[in-house]
């Protein structure tokens, strides 16, 4: 239903639906409708709608200031939108109902794991303690069980041998991979990535993207804000191109990234793919 409410590019939206409707559609894990937010006179988001199917990867691309990070941060209420409804699984938050209670925010936030652009690892805790922070410190689960699970997650991101290190002893790419393990440790329904490679040295980007690709292959539902167009092309099921607080184009990576319909999307992609041109 949100697809048909898309204010712009209805042709594009309907083609996205038809290309998928060959397979039986499961209920979406995430539904966002009418998400809007302003800072003073500046409209950051104007009525954003989209859905995320379970096990799928949605990539948000667009110029900085287009609102993609605000959309992502609305999914766990780190950003409180002025209006709009976010539903994840059977947890629904209506941002128009202000103020949100602490419990509402916490319940929504518990549905997703978040990976930040600048990792925000806890610097005073070891790698293992960072990963068990959610289960042990917040949820008060059994420590030894959580540690066993944490070691498994660290193996998944290829860093179990660093379990006893402090974050400052790791490279940027390793820090970001620990951030991924920490987010996975709360056993979320979906994973959110906010420009996870933008703060990294170029040669460290790959190791993070590889881990994310593995997660996608394992069937994790993911929403990713990124400028890594090749990652989006290879991994995304759905790409949303945002500009000026609206979703300008949406569809498969091929539709949005290879054959964009709008001039704005073409220009943006051209600029990041051939910056010298």
């Amino acid at each position: 239903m949100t697809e048909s409410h898309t204010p712009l590019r209805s042709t594009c939206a309907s083609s996205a639906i038809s290309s998928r409707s060959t397979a039986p559609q499961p209920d979406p894990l995430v539904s966002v409708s009418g998400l809007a937010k302003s800072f003073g006179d500046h409209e950051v988001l104007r009525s954003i709608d989209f859905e995320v199917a379970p096990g799928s990867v949605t990539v948000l691309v667009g110029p900085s200031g287009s609102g993609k990070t605000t959309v992502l941060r609305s999914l766990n209420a780190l950003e409180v939108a002025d209006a709009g409804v976010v539903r994840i699984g059977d947890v629904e938050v209506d941002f128009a109902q202000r103020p949100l209670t602490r419990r509402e925010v916490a319940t929504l936030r518990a549905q997703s794991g978040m990976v930040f652009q600048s990792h925000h690892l806890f610097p005073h805790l070891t790698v293992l303690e960072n990963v068990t922070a959610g289960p042990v410190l917040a949820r008060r689960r059994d420590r030894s069980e959580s540690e066993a699970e944490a070691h498994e997650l660290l193996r998944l991101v290829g860093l179990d041998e660093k379990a006893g290190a402090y974050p400052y002893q790791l490279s940027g790419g390793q820090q970001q991979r620990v951030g991924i393990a920490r987010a996975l440790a709360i056993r979320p329904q979906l994973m959110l990535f906010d420009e996870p490679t933008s703060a990294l040295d170029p040669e460290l980007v790959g190791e993070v993207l590889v881990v994310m690709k593995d997660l996608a292959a394992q069937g994790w539902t993911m929403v990713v804000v990124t400028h890594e167009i090749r990652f989006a092309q290879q991994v995304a099921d759905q790409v949303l191109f945002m500009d000026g607080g609206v979703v300008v184009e949406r569809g498969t990576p091929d539709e949005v990234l290879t054959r964009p319909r709008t001039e704005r999307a073409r220009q943006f992609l051209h600029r990041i793919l051939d910056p010298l041109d």
Partner: protein
Amino acid sequence: MNEQTTQLILDALGPLLRATVTTTIPLTIISFVLGLVLALGVALMRLSSVRAVSSVARVYVSLVRGTPLLLQLFIIYYGLPALGVRFDPFPAAVLAFTLNVGGYAAEVIRSAILSVPKGQWEAASTVGMGYVTTLRRVVLPQAARTAIPPLSNTLISLVKDTSLASTIQVTELLRVAQEAAAPTYQFFALYGVAAVYYWVVCLVLSAVQSRLEERQNRYVSA
């Protein structure tokens, strides 16, 4: 230095040490610990988004910092009895110093909490921590790193400020020195001994501060 003065100093070493250990140090430690607890509460109140709550904290800090400590001591010991509230000297001193430390340390703790990046609060929240857990497990341990040097300053000042308690009958180090010096007029010798004692206590505290700072630095690169 003549023999008589030497003897006087030697005789005073014991009583002055006793006053240091039984009164000056306990007065300092009790007031500082209670003051820190108070300061944490006041700092959190000042950071509250509820206007009324932060205003109360602001006024408290302003009063403590805007009036002389000696006057605060006098109001509690000599002034409050007029309102029917009477304290013995030692508890009166503890109360005055606690309130004083509470005001000064509140500002230190508040700025230390603010020095922890907002991303730490966000990250803690996304792994499921509430306000209290975040504060206890994430923010305060990091704030401690920033707060230790200025709080050590507060503590070291407090050691010396406890000498003000001599004016309200607390038999702490300075008062014992005064009492020993008065009949003999050997002020220089006895106040000198008292000064050395204060200094040694402060030296020990400075050493403890260095140790704490080193410990705090274990998780940041050199």
